[in-house]
């Protein structure tokens, strides 16, 4: 096999600048993957601090710590930072690290573009976060940026638009790179239907990104011209249509939701078979289910707009198409369950997070199904029920999957094991507190508390206090994660090449840590 050769070459082909310049100029998929993951972690804490400020204000009724305008800015920026700064770069970082190793390639197909697509992000977020210090404050109209409200933003407005443009360019380039790598650089013996699920889900995700990021760019550009160049795309008084923005935004926004969950499905489909010591149940149906979900994601956007006053036919269409998503998603959950069934299970930290993912993501799926029922949605819409729903799919879904992936592949990246006891502590603290945080939000929403409010009627006090306690517990538990990763990278025990007893796949045939240029000759897939 190629292991020896790669190992050898790693020694004499490693001419790279040292220090900071190494990271600025790097075109290596592992370095860029690390940059993405570190950036994602920093943004997780930036967005997390905003979330804790929100939860602190909501601990009691009345205005305690901040003006409602600043509260609205926090809500808006928390959403933008977590979606575009934490979750998406987290998955791109994993793709960078893993896809070349999993398809048997030496690196990504377009390494220079890879460097640029990462380095746009710090600038995009510098622009975005700098708006906190601008006249008129940071954007405060919600991450969905609905006009006319968002047009009341002060000097921050063009910075918001350009930051979104930069994030979009970064994502599209990242996606092109991933598609090019998967389609052109696979080991010759790896047919499409032999690709690991993580690679499959990212291939489909990358097409979604290319399809919808330009739509978002178009929408925010129209906002920009409405504000500064006298157009009236969304201005009713000028013959425009505020609802048009919502259609365009959610045509981007719904596939965006799947961009943030499909790679998570891929990760879980890698981890569960490894720790069940049993192949993934229904591999081909998993591939078809992923593709079906991706297709459906383009025809369900109207469910974000059930309360705008759509015609009956529109409501019925979007209700039925949304409910249909439950079918392929259900297939995935059933397949994971069947993979575990009669396996030989062990519960290292990645597996714990993966099992929690299946259970908690499914709870988010149930509330999603409830939200699809239009007459009931009129009661759930824009309430904490929705907040609970999308945090179950994005935190205990997407974020848990990223954390599971980091524990799973960290020994391959660093050559060292993390501390299993601390990993288990991290898991249990996170899982308990995350439910204390989000589960009561279902009740708040059903009892009638709208989202995005800095102050609330007295009957909502109890569950808000519970949620705030959960938020601080969950937030501080993540410091443990940073410590575990740091400790593993510096002083963990030496990892074996295969790392996990039940692991299959090309990345486990490489040494730990993996050589700088993963595979310089194509490996053979059985």
């Amino acid at each position, binding site marked *: 096999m190629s292991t020896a050769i790669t190992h050898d070459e790693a020694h004499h082909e490693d001419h790279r600048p040292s220090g900071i310049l190494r990271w600025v100029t790097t075109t290596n998929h592992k370095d860029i993957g690390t940059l993405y993951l570190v950036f994602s972690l920093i943004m997780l804490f930036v967005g997390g601090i905003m979330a804790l400020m929100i939860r602190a204000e909501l601990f009691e009724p009345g205005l305690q710590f901040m003006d409602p305008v600043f509260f609205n800015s926090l809500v808006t920026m928390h959403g933008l930072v977590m979606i575009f700064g934490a979750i998406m770069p987290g998955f791109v970082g994993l793709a960078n690290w893993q896809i070349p190793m999993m398809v048997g390639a030496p690196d990504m197909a377009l390494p220079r573009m890879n460097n640029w697509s990462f380095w746009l992000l710090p600038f995009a977020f510098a622009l975005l976060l700098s708006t906190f210090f601008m006249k008129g404050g940071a954007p405060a109209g919600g991450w969905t940026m609905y006009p006319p409200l968002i047009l009341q933003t002060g000097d921050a407005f063009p910075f918001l638009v350009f930051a979104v443009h930069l994030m979009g360019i970064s994502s599209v380039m990242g996606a092109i790179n991933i598609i090019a790598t998967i389609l052109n650089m696979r080991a010759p013996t790896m047919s499409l239907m032999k690709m690991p699920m993580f690679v499959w889900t990212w291939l489909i995700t990358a097409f979604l990104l290319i399809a919808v990021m330009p739509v978002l760019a178009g929408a925010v550009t129209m906002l920009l011209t409405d504000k500064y160049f006298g157009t009236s795309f969304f201005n009713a008084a000028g013959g425009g249509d505020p609802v048009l923005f919502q259609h365009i935004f959610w045509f981007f926004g719904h596939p965006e939701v799947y961009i943030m969950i499909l790679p998570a499905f891929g990760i879980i489909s890698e981890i569960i078979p490894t720790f069940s010591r049993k192949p993934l149940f229904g591999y081909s149906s998993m591939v078809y289910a992923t593709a079906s979900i991706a297709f459906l994601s383009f025809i369900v956007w109207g469910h974000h707009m059930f309360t705008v006053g759509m015609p009956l036919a529109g409501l019925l269409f979007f209700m039925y198409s949304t409910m249909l998503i439950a079918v392929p998603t259900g297939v995935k959950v059933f397949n994971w369950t069947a993979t*575990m069934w009669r396996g030989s299970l062990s519960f290292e930290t990645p597996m714990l997070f993966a099992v929690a993912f299946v259970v908690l993501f499914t709870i988010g799926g149930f509330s999603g199904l409830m939200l699809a029922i239009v007459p009931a949605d009129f009661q759930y819409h824009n309430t904490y029920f929705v907040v609970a729903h999308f945090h179950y799919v994005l935190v205990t879904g997407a974020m848990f999957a990223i954390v599971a992936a980091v524990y799973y592949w960290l020994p391959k990246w660093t050559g060292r094991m993390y501390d299993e006891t601390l990993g288990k502590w991290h898991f249990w603290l996170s899982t308990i507190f995350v439910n204390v945080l989000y589960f009561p939000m279902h009740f708040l929403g059903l009892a009638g508390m709208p989202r995005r409010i800095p102050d609330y009627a007295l009957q909502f006090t109890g569950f808000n206090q519970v949620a705030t306690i959960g938020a601080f517990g969950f937030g501080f538990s993540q410091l443990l994660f940073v410590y575990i990763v740091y400790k593993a990278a510096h002083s963990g025990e030496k990892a074996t090449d295969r790392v996990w007893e039940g692991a299959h796949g090309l990345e486990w045939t490489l040494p730990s840590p993996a050589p700088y240029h993963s595979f310089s000759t194509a490996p053979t897939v059985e």
Partner: protein
Amino acid sequence: MLISKIKNAGAGLLAAVLLGASGTANADWGMNLPKGATVISHDVYDLHMMVIWICVVIGIGVFGAIFISVLMHRKSKGAVAAQFHESTTVEIIWTIVPFVILVGMAIPASKVLIAESDTANSDLTVKVTGYQWKWHYDYPSEGISFFSTLSTPTDEIYNDAPKDKHYLREVDHPLVLPIHKKIRFLITANDVIHAWWVPAFAIQADAIPGYEHVVWTEIEKPGIYRGQCAMICGRGHAFMPIVVVAKTDADFKKWVAEQKAGTATAAVAETAAVAKTWTKDELVAKGKQVYDANCAACHQPTGSGVPGTFPPIAAGKPFSASAAMMQHLTERGFLKDGKIVMGPVKHHIETVLKGIPGTAMPAWGPQLSDVDIASVITYERNAFGNHTGDVVQPSEVKAAR
């Protein structure tokens, strides 16, 4: 019922464990949708419960299988992995069975939705308009219209006074509706998007500028129903509640008659008030009320504004904000050397009447009367340390419209 008791006990226990016994006296731990006060809201409640129970049953099945695996099929218990990994039959079954269940949910949901969409043959029409941050109600056939504004005092919001039972869910003029009548709402907005939401009616309808969103309800019993704006709409989003008082038809007719008489008297009084020359003291006293109800949310009760966003009213305070705001203030003489100054009366009237485009300062012309605007401007020019001595008469505002 038993289940809800267990749930409430569970929630109470959770709270007791987490919080101790203190500090939660106000919370009622509501956990579910209200059953509501209309036929549609009962249907919606039933749909909601049906879907919850279906989810619970599926959840028990799936999570049960996972937990059995987790407990029984452990390597540490000597479990040896089976090697099965695909079955087309099984895949087909768990594609078709969920599909059939979904059809079973879609049928009743569609029926309720179709009923909700039938807005024809209404007995009464009410036009609802969202403003930043209050609701306006208009009964076109009765000739009644009024604004409905939060009546919770600022002191309660800033924790300087104990909070009322209906904190943030109380208004000065509630919407009054008859029971057992089909009421059609035409919902729109004046500035940004709002959403009119009364859970007891199962109505949540976005109020969008340039749109007329039509929904209907038929209330079953008299009572007071509370809700609030559900769509983020700026600083006052949490502070624009909806209070509906439902009355029997006879009581409603009485209320309409009173309102009509009141409106007629008020119109005469308003004409007289505009024509009359007011003293400065009268204007300042009235102006304070108007200011506290409408302006204090942003410009603050002390006139100090919010740095970067809402200009102070007090002259001499430094201020800077977005370009649109700065340009307006500078051009009209309200800003010199980075400080707020009392610009000309003419521009003060214009700014209050028309607002500042591209900022959160709304046009108050359609919302406030000539007397209100004259008095609030007089108040602003003679309070918070401003001593211009200017008096603005309602007739001047009328002329400026």
